């Protein structure tokens, strides 16, 4: 069930066990970009799919970067899988990030590696044994429908295919939470829907997803809770009734 507590009251209390990511009264400002997150609290529960909407520059990417530990809050705290993020503890952060998958609007594929190597990179930097690595890469590419393109280089792929490679790379490590930062931002409407449905299918296999988009039409396609960033504040919008 979609809870109404995704946007949470200020809390210092212990989170419930199914909360896998949490922002507590987080403030984050950038001098050059005035709209900032201002006292944002949020709880993401295991097995849910959330849309995060807001106009460009409203702080959606900032919120995702906070959750992935790429940046630290000016005030407040960020918790992942029950642990407060400690950016200075390299090993602890690495451990937590292994439970995250991240996909980006600009895909961030490595142009000098094949599709398979891009996907394998996640496992390679974790020291995964080769047989297991090959098996998991094959499975991930199969999930996104790209086994035929395993030997191709990113330049030879369409935008939609590149995003599917990015998704395969994000899920190949078996994450508990997938942070999708405007994954359809560079894609045409039809391809955007395909990507959305792909992520929805992964969610149905148990993956928790936070999907940011400024395309409100996209959020109406699936019956998932919608969070909205507006003037630095997080609001919950009613869950649409649509079905995939």
């Amino acid at each position, binding site marked *: 069930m979609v809870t109404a507590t995704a946007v949470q009251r200020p809390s210092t209390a212990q989170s419930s066990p199914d909360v896998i990511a949490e922002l507590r009264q987080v403030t984050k400002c950038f001098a050059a970009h005035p709209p900032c997150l201002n006292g944002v609290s949020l709880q993401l529960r295991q097995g849910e799919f959330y849309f995060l909407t807001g106009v460009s520059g409203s702080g959606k990417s900032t919120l995702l970067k906070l959750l992935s530990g790429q940046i630290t809050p000016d005030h407040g705290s960020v918790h992942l899988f029950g642990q407060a993020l400690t950016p200075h503890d390299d*090993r602890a952060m690495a451990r937590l*990030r*292994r*439970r*995250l998958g991240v996909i980006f609007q600009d895909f961030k594929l490595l142009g000098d590696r094949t599709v398979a190597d891009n996907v394998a990179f996640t496992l390679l*930097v*974790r*020291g995964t044994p080769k047989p297991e690595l090959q098996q998991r890469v094959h499975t991930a590419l199969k999930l996104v429908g790209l086994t035929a393109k395993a030997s191709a280089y990113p330049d030879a792929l369409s935008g939609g295919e590149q995003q599917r490679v990015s998704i395969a790379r994000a899920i190949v490590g078996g994450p508990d939470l997938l942070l999708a930062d405007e994954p359809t931002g560079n894609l045409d409407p039809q391809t955007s829907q395909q990507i959305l449905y792909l992520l929805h299918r992964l969610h149905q*296999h*148990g993956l928790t997803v936070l999907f940011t988009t400024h395309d409100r039409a996209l959020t109406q396609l699936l019956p998932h809770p919608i969070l909205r960033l507006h003037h630095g504040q997080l609001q919950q919008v009613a869950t649409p009734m649509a079905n995939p």
Partner: protein
Amino acid sequence: MANFSRLPHPWPTLDFLIPEIRRSLWRGGWLNGAAVIAVAVTLFIFGWGWQISHTLGAAVAALGNRLEITAYVAPDLPETAVARLKQELAALPAVERLTWIGRDRAWAELQADLGLTTQQGDLHLFEQNPLSDEVKIRAKTLDQVASLATQIAQQQGIESVQYLERALSGLQRLQRVIRTATIALVLLLGVTVVALVSTILRLIILVRQPDIEIMILVGATQRWIYTPFFVQATGLGGIGGAVAWLAGASSSQHLQHWLSRQFSGGAIANSVTLEWSWLLGVSLVLAGICLGGLSTLLAIKTAPRG
């Protein structure tokens, strides 16, 4: 979703390390060559500075082995005092060999050297032997010559002491100057090389920032991310050291050959060598590796982080 590979491996595996180093070398392009040359030039200068200093040291030692201290005994010293002085001088710890030359023998040798007799020349002007007993003393090591001369001069019954102080101290001063200049130059060049190689590494890290950003996001530790750069830099440093040694060994052989033709013979010339030893080669390779390691640490410390 499956839960696996969540505990970071402490050290990068070869499956990861080798392709990453290859990629960094490829991205670095000619900058890798620049790093090797910078390290090689620095270590070449260091090698020659060390070798020249070592050679001068050998020359000083060779000269020092021929340096004798001559002490003149006060005239009219009683026999008992002479005996005591002999014992005391022989007991000095720095003395290697001591030769006592009595005044009569010294007088005879002087006359023989000059080719004169008391009947034939001016020496008959002296009614008595004007010389005193003298002692020729050799120190155990070159460093001990000056202090031994001072100790001898302080003995009762010694009138004066002589040795080639100026020549010796001049050579020693030259050796010190070369050694100091080498250290100063190498320190200066070393700092320059570390700055240069670390800048090259920072550029490579900057070029590879997209890879690093992904590595961080998928849970690579700093050790995994930066070990390939460390191995790359230490490798380049080691190669630089080896190149320096090869260049130095080759040039020293040519120089030695040329010198031996120019100055054939001569005790000092035979006792010194300009050739670079394999031990110097190993030292240069290790020094190159250290320079590479230091450069990596500096580059990592100052590199932009994803």
